[in-house]
């Protein structure tokens, strides 16, 4: 974990309320897909946690949805603007050898699955991709995953694009799942599968393990989503937190 100044080199809208921001800076603290960063914005007190969507030497990609004051402000930033970012937070996904695992993302849960897909491919694993959205206008990153030559399935709630329904409709028996998305989606996926990894969200005070703002009960005790997660194994998860 380090606080690093990143310079914006791209910040553009890619779907309804969804923006892609590419930043230049030292990414060496990011080790695994599924990790996140915590972004300081000048007019907000708390930092904003965002998943690493993609990273390489010196470039970081974030995908964010404008939902409130912070993300709305982010969407007004220009190339060249500099952001202070706590980089390399959380543990991220672990690469598990398995035949055709499935990556299941809902809405802004999708971004971390992109870096994960690339990492799986590097490990000679070709995952299946299932993306869920509310509506056609919300769809993003279909092309990016296809460009990795992966099998991409899309579900929309209202059927305006892909299949009408839920991501869970596509899950085959015994697939190892890597999931990220709203809590309701995670729960539904959990019920359909037998093993996998799930990425959780919480309102965070710090993002690096010291405030106990993001605690969650697991089978291996109380865990901090920010530091012990955000990705948890199937076997650890209990749902009684809510």
């Amino acid at each position, binding site marked *: 974990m380090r606080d690093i100044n990143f310079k914006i080199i791209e910040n553009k809208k890619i779907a309804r309320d969804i923006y892609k921001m590419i930043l230049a800076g030292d990414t060496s603290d990011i080790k695994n897909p599924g990790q996140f960063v915590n972004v300081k914005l000048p007019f907000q*007190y708390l930092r904003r946690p965002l998943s690493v969507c993609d990273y390489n030497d010196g470039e970081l990609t974030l995908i964010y949805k404008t939902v409130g004051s912070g993300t709305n402000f982010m969407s007004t930033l220009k190339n060249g603007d500099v952001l202070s970012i706590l980089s390399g937070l959380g543990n991220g996904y672990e690469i598990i050898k398995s035949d055709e695992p499935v990556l299941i993302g809902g809405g802004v849960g999708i971004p971390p699955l992109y870096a994960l897909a690339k990492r799986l491919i590097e490990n000679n694993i070709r995952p299946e991709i299932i993306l869920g959205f509310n509506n056609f206008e919300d769809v993003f990153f279909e092309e990016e995953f296809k460009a990795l030559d992966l099998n991409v399935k899309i579900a929309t709630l209202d059927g305006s694009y892909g299949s009408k329904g839920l991501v869970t409709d596509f899950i085959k028996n015994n697939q190892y799942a890597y999931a990220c998305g709203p809590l309701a989606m995670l729960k539904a996926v959990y019920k359909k599968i037998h093993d996998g990894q799930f990425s959780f969200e919480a309102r965070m*005070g*710090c993002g690096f393990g010291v*405030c106990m703002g993001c605690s969650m009960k697991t089978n291996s005790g109380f865990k901090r989503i920010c530091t012990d997660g955000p990705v948890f194994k199937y076997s650890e998860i209990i749902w009684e937190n809510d």
Partner: protein
Amino acid sequence: MMIDLSTELSGLKLDNPVIPASGTFGYGLEFAKIYDLNILGSISIKGTTKDARFGNKLPRIAECYAGLINSVGLQNPGIDHVINNELPELRKIFNKPVIANISGFSVDEYVYCAERMDKISNVGIIEINVSCPNVHGGGITFGSDCEKVFEVTQAVKKVTHKPVYIKLTPNVTDIVKIALSAEEAGADGISLINTLLGMRIDIKTHRPIIANKTGGFSGPAIFPVALRMVYQVHKAVNIPVIGMGGISCAEDVIEMMMAGASAVQIGAANLIDPLACKKIIEDLPKLCERLKIQRLSDIIGITD
């Protein structure tokens, strides 16, 4: 010019007045990865209770203008675990006495924890949190009542030889009265302030953002209230005051010490900038030089 940053709390000499506040620094392990903790004056560890606690439901955090609300609810592994694991771990990376912040839900619990902490060699001060707004039946109810504060203080003092600091809640009509009760009961010092009781609502769902509805509000927003209380209490008591509430830069430290604080604690600032304490400690000598302060302890309570 060599600036002397040292200060003293009830005989405990600190290299500088900067102490991370309870609940915002864990047990130091995460910070030790990014700087040497030994630059700190001391460390106030996360509030410890007799038994392990998970704390409150999530969400526990809400953002505010210039601050945040938390309702962690004293999550901690319980005093046995803290004594057997966290404190020994901390000792490996921090070679100065720490401040053991303890909470309870009855006088007996406070006494139990104080008695246990009394025996731990790297505990320099016992800080009695009678002011946590996030738990029912204890915490804040103690801190807003003079007699309860007196009772807890007196009971704890009986079982420990270490200096006892009473950490007060700002959510009271008359902070001076409460502080005087603590002093009268034998407190060696006063820590203040804990968080202000606050609330936020999500206007999209019209539900409170915090699962527990209300929570403790801290950060730069509360600084003027904290400063006022430190000023008032310092003028009224004859024991040292540790000042806190919204401190985020060296200027704030100086202002708080001028108001009467012998040392300061830094809370929310650590969450936003993990290097906050380090930066403050580095900035202090430069600022002292600019303000022509040779010995920092000279300014304690200098404001009339």
